[in-house]
């Protein structure tokens, strides 16, 4: 009787091996020369997973030097890429997504039970065997914060020049622009009107572009929410500061314009499922300022209503807006000195901040909540276009 020996094909265990001499090439192809478009049709954050699978193999071989060397080279390469592309939202978003994913992987596969609660049995088998990389997690967390700050800086740099004209100057209310001659209607809906004038539509298009980029790169939804909370704060603060300095925009009709624009921004947040981001809350002072421009400003009763309405504006800001308020037609009236005194009297007990203007550069602290992935490492495919054929699947 003849015995047959069946040889089972060894399973891929989700590790990638390379010769130490190839580390430079690995980091070059995966980080330094990586273009986000190359991996756009694959699993989001593919570079982070590939790097982690290389780390896993070095850990499996108990080669601490290899782990140390790869992580250090990778982190330095990411920093270099970001320095080179310091005004590129695409690159910044891509590396924020990948750096935070690598950080999540180091947690998810750390073997620390606190991070394993959502792991599958297979994912638990893939945990690191020899090394505790907690210190590297700290470095990646610090790096993620730096990249987040760069992302905010780039996005703010793009949005800021658009804000004043889009929020306060351009007439975006369809019913109002609809009655204007064709030439005006066309102008108000175009992206750029004159040299430095933008419509709200242009701002929304820009927000859409930011959102699509971040989603494409697989950035965590919690981080995306924080980005938009920060950007909405900036939009609101720049608008309010401008309002507080300009007589020509403190009118009933600008109030109406502003309320319409804010409602468009709120609708955008709802459409992108960003209601929980806290972005609307950051606009509260501006919402109140817009209402203040529109409410009646005559009787003691009106003054009382204003005081209970404007809780997110300081007395100084309320008084400033009332002083600047300018009637544009015969139905509107300038606010009387006695009305303003009445308001000041009612708000005397308030402990308001002293500065008139908002710090539009204020940044909220960022948090990177742990987001494990459902992906199983052994299912990952590496496209040939990445030029990583020197990696061996183990």
């Amino acid at each position, binding site marked *: 009787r003849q015995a047959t020996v069946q040889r089972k094909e060894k399973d891929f265990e989700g590790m990638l091996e390379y010769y130490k001499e190839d580390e430079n090439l690995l980091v070059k192809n995966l980080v330094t020369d990586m273009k986000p478009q190359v991996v756009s049709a694959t699993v989001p954050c593919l570079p982070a997973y590939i790097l982690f699978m290389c780390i896993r193999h070095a850990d499996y071989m108990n080669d601490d030097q290899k782990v*140390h060397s790869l*992580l*250090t080279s990778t982190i*330095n390469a990411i*920093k270099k890429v970001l320095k080179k592309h310091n005004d590129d939202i695409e690159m910044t978003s891509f590396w924020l997504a990948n750096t935070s994913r690598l950080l999540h992987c180091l947690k998810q596969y750390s073997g620390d039970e606190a991070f394993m609660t959502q792991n599958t049995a297979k994912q638990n088998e893939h945990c690191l*065997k020899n*090394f*505790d990389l907690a210190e*590297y997690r700290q470095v990646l967390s610090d790096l993620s914060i730096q990249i987040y700050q760069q992302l905010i800086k780039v996005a703010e740099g793009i949005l800021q020049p658009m804000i004043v004209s889009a929020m306060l100057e351009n007439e975006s209310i369809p019913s109002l622009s609809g009655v204007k001659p064709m030439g005006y209607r066309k102008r108000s809906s175009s992206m750029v009107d004159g040299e430095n004038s933008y419509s709200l539509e242009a701002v929304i298009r820009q927000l859409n572009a930011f959102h699509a980029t971040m989603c494409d790169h697989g950035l965590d939804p919690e981080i995306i929410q924080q980005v938009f909370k920060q950007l909405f704060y900036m939009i609101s603060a720049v608008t309010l500061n401008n309002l507080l300095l300009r007589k020509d925009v403190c009118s009933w009709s600008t109030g109406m314009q502003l309320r319409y624009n804010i409602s468009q921004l709120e609708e955008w947040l709802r459409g992108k499922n960003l209601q929980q981001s806290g972005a609307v809350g950051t606009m509260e002072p501006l919402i109140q300022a817009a209402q203040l421009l529109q409410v009646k400003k005559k009787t003691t009763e009106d003054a009382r209503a204003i005081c209970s309405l404007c809780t997110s504006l300081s007395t100084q800001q309320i008084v400033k807006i009332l002083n600047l308020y300018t009637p544009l037609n015969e139905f509107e009236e300038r606010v009387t000195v006695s009305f303003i005194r009445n308001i000041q009297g009612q708000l005397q007990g308030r402990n308001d901040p002293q500065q008139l203007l908002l710090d539009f550069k204020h940044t909220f602290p960022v948090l990177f909540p742990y987001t494990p992935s459902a992906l199983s490492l052994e299912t990952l495919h590496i496209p040939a276009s990445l030029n990583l054929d020197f990696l061996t699947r183990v």
Partner: protein
Amino acid sequence: RAPPQRPRVLLKAPTLAEMDELNISEEEESP
């Protein structure tokens, strides 16, 4: 359930700021 494992060895890492310093010297060396 996976069998209990031996404790993992903590790998010491430089801080991000220390890596910056390493990076600067590296850049100075390059032509």
